[in-house]
């Protein structure tokens, strides 16, 4: 159950990568740091201002989502069309800035986020399951359903799919492509914030929470970079692999299991489980 829940978090962060990658072909190395910001914003509202958990949750999603959109409109739009390397460096730099911002604003201590379902357990078929993990899994399932419905059934969602498949054609069809990209950044940042808030009660909040993003890379690559169901399946697989390698393999393997899987996947099947192979036209 724990492996499944942690896997869901990896899946959600990987989902954020994949959404942005599919739409804009940028790889966002700052995704994990957006997750960290989400957790901190929620913590700030709950503990500093005494706002209720659910309101703080919504505020965190809205604020971080808005932040993502502004980031796209002001910074990242400028580098579209430049070498991918420039984007990688740019997002690494942004990630470092976010961490620095968080440590200045909220301090570099370690915090715990109180939730309405903290320290409660349910017995489920002889295994006691704490509600925090249940919340992660339920939250992930709900979010995925919502995103699926949004992308297939709403006008904006279909327009987003169109602009991610072919920017120019979508532009000719009258879709405001730039605004769509900002919206995708907003959704992706919002998903990261949700992952952060869900993760916060299980793990503790500190400025290095964002390094979970590195493991989410493994999830995204395993699922095939660019496949949305792949991201989730990849995340859950990585979570379970970590759990079992912690139980059955020597000490220390658990921490690097995700990266070993990542290297193996890249060496053996770089397109991942659900990826498509594209040939480059000259």
């Amino acid at each position, binding site marked *: 159950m724990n492996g499944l829940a942690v896997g869901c978090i990896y899946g959600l962060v990987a989902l954020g990568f994949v959404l942005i990658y599919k739409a804009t072909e940028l790889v966002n190395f700052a995704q994990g740091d957006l997750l960290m910001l989400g957790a901190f914003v929620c913590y700030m509202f709950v503990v500093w201002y005494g706002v209720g958990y659910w309101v703080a949750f919504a505020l965190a999603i809205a604020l971080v989502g808005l932040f993502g959109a502004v980031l796209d409109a002001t910074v990242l739009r400028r580098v579209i069309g430049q070498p991918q*390397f420039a984007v990688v460096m740019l997002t690494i*730099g942004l990630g470092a800035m976010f961490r620095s911002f968080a440590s200045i604003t909220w301090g570099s201590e370690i915090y715990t986020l109180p939730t309405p379902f903290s320290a409660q357990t349910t017995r489920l078929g002889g295994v006691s399951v704490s509600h925090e993990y249940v919340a992660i899994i339920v939250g992930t399932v709900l979010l995925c359903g919502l995103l699926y419905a949004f992308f297939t059934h709403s006008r904006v969602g279909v327009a987003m799919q169109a602009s991610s498949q*072919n920017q120019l054609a979508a532009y000719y069809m009258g879709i405001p492509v730039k605004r769509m990209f900002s919206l995708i950044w907003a959704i992706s940042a919002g998903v990261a914030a949700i992952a952060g808030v869900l993760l916060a009660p299980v793990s503790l909040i500190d400025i290095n929470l964002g390094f979970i993003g590195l493991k989410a890379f493994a999830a995204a*690559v395993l699922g095939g970079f660019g496949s949305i169901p792949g991201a989730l399946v990849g995340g859950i697989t990585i979570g379970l692999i970590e759990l079992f390698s912690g139980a059955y393999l020597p000490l220390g393997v658990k921490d690097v299991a995700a*990266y070993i899987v990542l290297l193996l996947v*890249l060496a053996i099947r*770089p397109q991942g489980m659900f990826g498509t192979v594209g040939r480059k036209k000259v």
Partner: protein
Amino acid sequence: MRIPFKTTYDADLGLFRDPVQRRWYAALLAAVLLLPLAVPAYLVDISLVFIYGICGVSLMVLAGYTGLVSLGHAAFLGIGAYAHVFFLQDVGLPWVVSVALAALLTAAAGMLVGLPALRMTGVYLTIATLAFALIIQEVFTRWERVTHGLKGRPVDKPVIFGVSFTSDVAFYFLCVALLIVALWLTANVLRAPTGRAWVAIRDSEIAAQSMGVHLARYKTMAFAYSAGLMGAAGALFAHKIGFLAPDIFSVLLSIQFLLMVVVGGLGSLHGALYGAVFVALLPVLISEARDYVPQWAGQAAAVLGKDAGSAVYLAVERFVKQPGLEPGVFGLILVLFILFEPLGIYGRWRKLQVFFSTFPLYKRATFRRQKTYMRSERLR
């Protein structure tokens, strides 16, 4: 505008463009050799600049010339450092042999990473090297017999052919010598067929392949060469810091190396050195700024009245004394360079040169980069 006319093939093959350039480099060398007399207090910091210079040259070969961006070079540095210390202190080999073995071992590790790298391009490679670096860092922590794990491992001062390099000045000259060897070697490799093949791969893999460049061989060579240089730098780095611990060789150090080549200017050896100066001296600058900036802000605000001045002084001082500020400043510099000067310091310098040599005719378009949209390159 000065146009060097080359009248012999030797002139065309030479390392330097013309006698004027050679004299400039000779002057620079003389300045570097005389530097210990001028600033004896900062020698340790400047030695670090030279070690970072070797690292920068190493990453420049891979990222700047071959177009393979690695986020795992701190791991190569670590492998070199630990291997050198192991060979030197546990096995008891002479210093020169130990450095050579460390460089060879690191080159082998680089080849190992390079092999799967042949199948991936662009950002996948970056992620793979990142994963490699994280695994290696864990190995450093767990393999206690060699690395002494989290306890860390002290490093002796270098003794070469019976000559002890204990003093700062001696170590400074050791670093200078190794940097010059690295630069000379790299400059020669880069103007040989190997270097041209690397540049061809960077500019277009498909074009290079159709011109007969063996992609797998040259990419692996680039990885091995870059890692080998990094290993040699690691040996010096071990002596410089005097104490090895796994968390030194973290992802953040890899990011600093990338920052170095980006800020310096991708695709030039000059850039690697500018970047090294920048990255090694920036922490020194920041710590100096921590003392001066609050004073300046306080004096500026004192125009509004004495209370405002002291209030601003305290507020600014509290802000700049935050420990988390430094990585943020690094990040900010990186972002600003990518957005406004993607060619780095060397690019800015080239632009100045071109501006003055073609004075009234300078066009911005000379340095405009062609945009490439990935999407159009992909068949769906």
